[in-house]
């Protein structure tokens, strides 16, 4: 069973993604702020991370930055899920921290996310 870490501060979205991934037989770990998310990312060794960028305490971009400096975090597949605009932090995330995907949440369904996650895992 694959483990997914969902770091998302919006309760509703968090529960939606959690429900969907559970239905699709993932082991789901969740965090509602950046600090907890980073801690879990480093301690729980997830197979895949769903990461929001606009997060309290530690911003998504900083989580990526820290993760990419650790040995485990360096290769961990990250799907960035954000509703921010395409500029700024998203470009920084893409150009610097090598996410597997960078998706605008509003434009996709949970179904799409599952599909992308599967692709990544299968690829590995």
């Amino acid at each position: 069973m694959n483990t997914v870490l969902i770091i998302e501060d919006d309760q509703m979205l968090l529960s939606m993604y959690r429900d969907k991934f559970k239905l699709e037989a993932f082991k789901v770990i969740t965090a509602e702020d950046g600090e907890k998310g980073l801690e879990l990312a480093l301690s729980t060794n997830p197979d895949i991370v769903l990461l929001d960028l606009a997060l309290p305490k530690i911003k998504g971009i900083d989580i990526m930055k820290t993760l990419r400096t650790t040995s485990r975090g360096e290769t961990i597949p990250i799907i960035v899920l954000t509703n921010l605009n395409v500029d700024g932090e998203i470009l920084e995330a893409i150009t610097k921290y090598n996410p597997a995907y960078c998706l605008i949440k509003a434009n996709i369904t949970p179904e799409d996310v599952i599909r992308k996650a599967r692709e990544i895992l299968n690829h590995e």
Partner: protein
Amino acid sequence: MLYIISGKLGLSFASLNPSATAIWPPTGIALAVLLIFGYRVIPAIFLGALVVNLTTSGTVITSLGIALGNTLEGIIGMYLVKKYSEGVNIFENVSTIFKFVFFAAILSTSISADIGALTLILGHLANWKDFIAIWTTWWFGDMGGNLIIAPIILIWSASGRIHSSFRVIIHILLSFFILLLTTWLIFSGIFPYVYLCIPIAIWNAFWFGRRGATLTTLIVAAIAIFYTLHGYGPFSQTTSINQSLILLQVFISILSVTSLTFAALVHALRKREKTLEYHDARFKALIEKSFDAVLLIDATSKILYASPSVNRVLQYEPEELIGMTGFDLIFPEDRQFTIRTLTKLVLKHGNTITVEYRVIQKNKNVIWVEATGTNLLLDQTVNAVVVNFRDITEKKVLQENILQEKTEDEAMLASIGDGIIATDQTGRITMVNKSACDTLGWTKRELIGKLLTDIILMEDETGTIVPIAERPISKVLSLRRKVVTSRTFYYGKKDKSYFPVRFRVTPIEIDQKIVGIIEVFQDITREKEIDRMKDEFISMASHELRTPMTAVNGLLSMIFHGDYGPINEKLKHPLDNIRVSAQRQIHLINDLLDVSRLQTGKIDFNFADFSIKPMLEEIVKSLMPIAQQKALTLTLQGKEELSVNADIEWSKHIMNNLIGNALKFTDKGSVSLTYYEKDNVVYIDVTDTGSGINLSDREKLFGKFQQLSGKDTAKPPGSGLGLYLSRELAQKMNGDVQLSKSIVGKGSTFSLILPKTNINTPQAIKTRKEEIAFSSKNK
């Protein structure tokens, strides 16, 4: 020859010694000839003197000696006269006449007397006891020659016409008749009052000038000599004829000099009179003809004279002004000032002051004049203050206008919110306005004359000082064209802080030569702040607006997927409506964000060459379900393998939009895609069999928020931004989106036009951005 004849004639009177005579005209002839012709006549004189003496008496030796004396006398006489007086024009004024008498008549003749007398004695032609007598006779003879004969030749040889009218000739004849008569009466002894000659000579000198004087002397001399030689007249009473002749000679010499002097005085007087008359006439003409108006006033400004041109300036007739007080003509406000000026002017003779003031014309108009006053109160010929003046109203008005304009210009420049700096062609600051000073923190004085690049430092966005050669002003001065930069630069203030600046540097050209630059700049700190706030707002809006929709859309998709169990048939329809609305909402937000990004220049384009066929196939595949749902055929045609140079993701976005629209607005039939090359660009046509677009609607088709009204209100509406955004994006990629064809009731064709592959365009760097594009554009 003349010399010889006159010499012989003179010697014919010799009584004391054959070679020494009391009448010796050749001396005068020699001097006159030398003065007129110069040294080149010396040989002729010497030869003449030699011949006269040889043919008279004595030996060759004595004749040579006497000739030498005669010649030397002439040369020295000429030299002295030329050196100390005025050469030929000796008889024009009194002082040179006196010089002539001294040098030529007294001094030079003594030489000839010395040499002549000595030669005669040494040549044993005379005795020592007679030396004084011979010397005196000789001297008086020569002196007489110079005083009587030389003036005649010199004066009569000088050019100059004699004015002759009937009256003049009668006058001359009468005068000389009286002269002849008187002289005859005196010297024939009938009426021996010698001094009667004097008034007659003066009379003639007065009326007939120097010529009259010399002629008189000559006539008196001729008659007197004749009668004296024959023993008549007042001079024939003495012991010897020689004595008589010497006395006569002295008398005639005095008569000659006196009348010549008198003639010279009369001449000088007449000349002065003429000059004065001429000056007077000229002075008057100058005043009368002068363009300037001229007033002569006294120290109290009373008008003594007004020139005719005064009328043009003041409108008064000159006569009306005479006697008026000048100050009364002056505009009241300027009166005190002109009174002060006149007071200052009359303090010193010769003072000249130029001032401008207003005067009142006769018709009460006020005009400006420029007047120059000259104090000539002590000048005997003027005795007034001369005031030249002219109307300068036009000039004054022009000046005032210019001043007014200048003040306005300066006020305008100062009030302009933008900083303005002008420099010369070397980049030195020549002008700054107030805004520039305020913005930069320097004072005007600190900036003027400095090199702009020295005093105002410039940093780029990274905080690096921009080198002088890279500065826009340097580029303008070297490239000679306007520079506008879209990059943000920062200007250093006096306090070393920097502010973001936007500027425009333009060359100042005169006759196609750059004489400097003008830079207009603005502190855009606030704009930058607003920009940042706007970005923040858009970011926030996009996040906050999209997040709730994400939940709605996501949850609905899960419901439809059956993740929450089977759906009640009755709920299916409303749930579907909710989904469509939610998607529409997301669509709208996305389009709004794209437009905003496009407008703020935030959209990047990764230009690359790509083949359009695979791209179109992918889109067709993704949209096929929608077409099938509506029972429409969706086809792709295009045989050629065509590549374009554009941003592939934005191209997909446009095609999705065009095909999406076609599918949405077509109920029956097909949507077909064709691509082809025409005129070096690639066309991708999307043709539908929909309702077509009204002519009146075509114009607003590409505007913002344009949704075509019409019968199809039941159709799911879009954001109204799709076509606008598509066209903007296409244009940013050097292409276009256009409505190629539309027939109402039959359908429309929209085309995306993109530039063909340019083999020279390097492949754009591939980034993972494609992934974002995937997610953000494949709605």
